[in-house]
């Protein structure tokens, strides 16, 4: 191999390798599915499994939130679809919501899921047009989840017992 050819190939390889390392450190994929999904999402080729998503939506509407999340995980294994991750976050909200107190762990997982959704949404904006939901945007859902995580004197307000789940 000619000296200059080898040097050019070496340079290109090193640049590609360095870019992949930076990408890995920024995205931190946890599985091969997440890695390939994130790669295909970056070129706009990522598609969710529509049938699994419909199953998830059916479970979600039937209040079977654990089953819904399993189906959503099948639909969006790389966690690159903003709408699916929005529903995952919403399932954590609905499951964790309580008239007397909220499940802090589930709400925290909901915040993580909505953050993931916002991170992959174009422009960070998510609006889901679903009449079954009372909150349609990521901003509303995140604010509701964060409010649910806060502790304060308002927790002792008896009127809290009359609030409605969204």
């Amino acid at each position, binding site marked *: 191999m000619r000296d200059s050819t080898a040097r050019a190939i070496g340079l290109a390889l090193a640049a590609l390798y360095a870019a992949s390392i930076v990408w890995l*450190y920024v995205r931190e994929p*946890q599985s091969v599915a997440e890695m390939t999904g994130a790669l295909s999402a970056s070129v706009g080729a990522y598609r969710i499994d529509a049938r699994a998503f419909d199953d998830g939506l059916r479970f979600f509407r039937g209040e079977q939130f654990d089953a819904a999340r399993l189906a959503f995980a099948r639909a969006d294994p790389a966690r690159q679809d903003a709408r699916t991750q929005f529903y995952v976050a919403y399932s954590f909200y609905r499951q964790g919501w309580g008239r007397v107190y909220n499940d802090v762990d589930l709400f925290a997982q909901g915040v993580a899921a909505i953050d993931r959704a916002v991170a992959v949404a174009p422009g960070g904006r998510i609006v889901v047009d679903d009449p079954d939901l009372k909150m349609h945007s990521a901003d509303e859902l995140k604010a509701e989840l964060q409010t649910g995580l806060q502790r304060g004197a308002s927790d002792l307000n008896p009127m809290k017992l009359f609030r409605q789940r969204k």
Partner: protein
Amino acid sequence: MTHIREAFVLPLLFLTVALLGGVRVADRVVLLPPPLFALVLAVILTGVLVKSGALAPDRLINASRPGLANANGVVVLVSLVAAAAQAFNVAIPEFGLPRLLFSVFLFVLLINTLAASPDRVRVLRSMLVIFTSAFVLKFIVLAAVSDPTGGRMKRLLLAMLEGVTLGTLTQDAYRPATGYLAFITLTLFVSGLALLPPRAMLALERQSRTLLPPDQEPRR
């Protein structure tokens, strides 16, 4: 130095160190970027390598070389600094008193080496000792102290550290894979340091020694 080593071996080796240096395997795989202090140590280490003759930057970048060769040289230098930062990231504990102690110890050690101006071989030996010691302390001693299940090693260390609050010493418990990866990372890094182009005088001296018969070899 061959162009293959400069264009392929060194950059890919150092970039692999930069990749593996931040990997921590716990319940999930975490990739830790190097802390700012690791970057400072990496720059000092590069200075030590240059001063000792273990690295001759002018053999990687100079006006008489073609642009492409100089670009390869720049890649080697940049990847060396990145790898050094990640090697220190591996070697230094993640938080608490051990992090502070390791950081200060490594900083003083590197400054001392810089001031002493040792030759290439001594610097490489010194790096081997520094990284081996740091590895043993972090991944064997501290890992044993931080092991939530305990064990003979932990009991022994607890007896030795009687009176010390363990809260200041314990670290996150990682899976054993983290230690193996750290070992591979540090081995690759030290091997890469040995492959760097040395100062021309040193290279010529070594070449002349191999050409001369044993009885005419210059006395050192």
